[in-house]
């Protein structure tokens, strides 16, 4: 239980950080500092060259051809302005004074700060993951429950369509979808629309699970009894079947959220990912699929930790819920 609570905490803090990305990141995610392309993570020091300890962590920066100066890391510094809800702010959590640069996680090929991109990318990735998961689970649950509950031709046709949809080459539907989106749609919305399509198309697997569950549950005494009391199908689904399906759905979600977060990488491999300059975790990792970047710049792999953390948390929560289920074994 403790572990699940911890996971919830981590997950929540990831979400909050993503929400406050503008504040927590030292520079805007799209700013290209071209002279710093593929800069490795900046070394933050406590000891200066002479071996003296500094109370404040600092970085070194070259001021001219011969001199290197110390620049302390500052907190709540003024920087570029951003919108946080209705207010415009220009405070950033930390930063260093120019000409020093502080790249916590290095920079990418355009000299954009990876740390800022990682935070900003979380917004898109998490939204995409949840959106697609919620869509496929809700459609899957609806259709699966329908199929299991009513049976007969409805069940048959839903399941056949599901089977067909598992094999259909959705890729070119996605290609078409991307191609038909108006050019004016912002990159993030365009991507969310696409991932929503992916989520909608992912209904078949959860539908199968829910259908199986419904089939088993609809013969239970309390369901039969409820029907005896004149309960409508909607009532039975709502009160008796869905609550039982919920733990299963949560487990499914625990798997689907990370999967949909990473789907972006595959989508961008197929040319359907999120457009520059907006970052997302998959999009940042997509750079690593180029062999030369993978072998040359190790810090480009760091964004993989974010989805890994999310999926570990999701798993832990899913597991805990599954253990709590203890309901009627199926």
């Amino acid at each position, binding site marked *: 239980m403790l572990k699940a609570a911890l996971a919830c905490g981590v997950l929540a803090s990831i979400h909050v950080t993503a929400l406050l990305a503008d504040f927590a990141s030292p520079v805007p995610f799209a700013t290209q500092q071209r002279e710093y392309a593929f800069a490795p993570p900046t070394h933050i020091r406590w000891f200066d060259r002479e071996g003296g300890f500094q109370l404040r962590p600092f970085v070194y920066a070259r001021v001219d051809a011969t001199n290197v100066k110390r620049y302390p890391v500052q907190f709540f510094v003024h920087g570029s302005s951003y919108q946080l809800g209705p207010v415009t702010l220009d405070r950033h959590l930390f930063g260093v004074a120019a000409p020093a640069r502080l790249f916590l996680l290095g920079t990418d090929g355009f000299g954009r700060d990876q740390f800022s991109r990682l935070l900003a990318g979380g917004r898109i990735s998490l939204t995409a993951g949840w959106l697609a998961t919620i869509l496929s689970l809700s459609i899957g649950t609806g259709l699966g429950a329908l199929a299991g509950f009513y049976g007969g031709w409805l069940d048959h046709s839903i399941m056949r369509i599901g089977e067909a949809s598992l094999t259909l080459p959705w890729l070119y539907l996605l290609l078409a979808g991307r191609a038909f989106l108006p050019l004016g749609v912002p990159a993030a919305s365009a991507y969310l629309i696409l991932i929503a399509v992916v989520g909608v198309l992912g209904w078949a697997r959860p539908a199968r699970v829910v259908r199986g569950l419904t089939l088993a549950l609809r013969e239970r*005494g309390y369901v039969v009894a*409820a029907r005896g*009391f004149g309960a409508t199908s909607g009532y039975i689904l709502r009160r008796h079947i869905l609550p039982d399906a919920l733990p299963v759905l949560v487990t499914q979600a625990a798997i689907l959220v990370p999967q949909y977060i990473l789907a972006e990488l595959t989508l961008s491999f197929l040319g359907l990912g999120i457009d520059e300059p907006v970052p997302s975790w998959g999009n940042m990792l997509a750079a690593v699929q180029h062999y030369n970047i993978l072998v040359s710049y190790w810090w480009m792999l760091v964004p993989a930790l974010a989805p890994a953390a999310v999926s570990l948390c999701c798993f832990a929560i899913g597991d805990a819920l599954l253990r709590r289920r203890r309901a009627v074994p199926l």
Partner: protein
Amino acid sequence: MLLETHSLTKEYTRKNLPSKPVTVRALDNVDFRIGRCSSLALVGASGSGKSTLARCLGGLEKPSGGAITFRGTDLSRMSSAEIRNYKRKVQIVFQDPAGTINPRFTAASAVSEPLDITAVGSPDERRERATYWMEQVGLRTALAQRPALELSGGERQRLAIARALIVNPEVIIFDESFSALDLPVAGHVLALLRRLREDYGLTCLFIGHNLTLLARFCTEVAVMYQGRIVESGPMQQFLTAPAHPYSRALAGAIPHLPVEWPA
């Protein structure tokens, strides 16, 4: 007559691939009647069709042939509103204590479920009635907010009975409902039912193969054998002079109980 069947037939077809489908006749021209205020024991071996009859009477299955009439109205001619009303008037309590109550519900909400479905009264009133009926079937009110999952089989069965009673039915069908209860509890519930029969004219149909309990309580008895009713009549007569060979076996198996049931 309150509830009667006329040549009721129910067949199940099993597609026994690759050979021809096999048809099993679970009910075979059953003619059966229960009067108001009566209490009838329907006994028979496993697989003799008792439960099928109960499910047909409860409106959970459509008969393949024949008819069921309630207060003289044919079930198959009823409008959907009338059917809903019928389902409320005729309640079934099932055998399986684990399955009858959704383990997720609290005891009180499981009992008040029928009222919730039909949205009778305010939520508070429903809760009140639920606790009232829980007390009536001998459940402590302290259990009301406990999830059904944590209750024992007997307690759940009593919840099921309370749930059947909460809608003020005219007929309750107990489909082997007492097998999960220990004797004192069963006796307590039976006493409650007797009171209700006397006060409200409740009609009870007990289904089982064990006459031990029912012999004292029921005034009438019907014996099913292989989908047919082979014998029916007053309990007293059945106990003293059973006609069918199977009835004889049943009647002979009733032990003589040393104690009198509490009133």
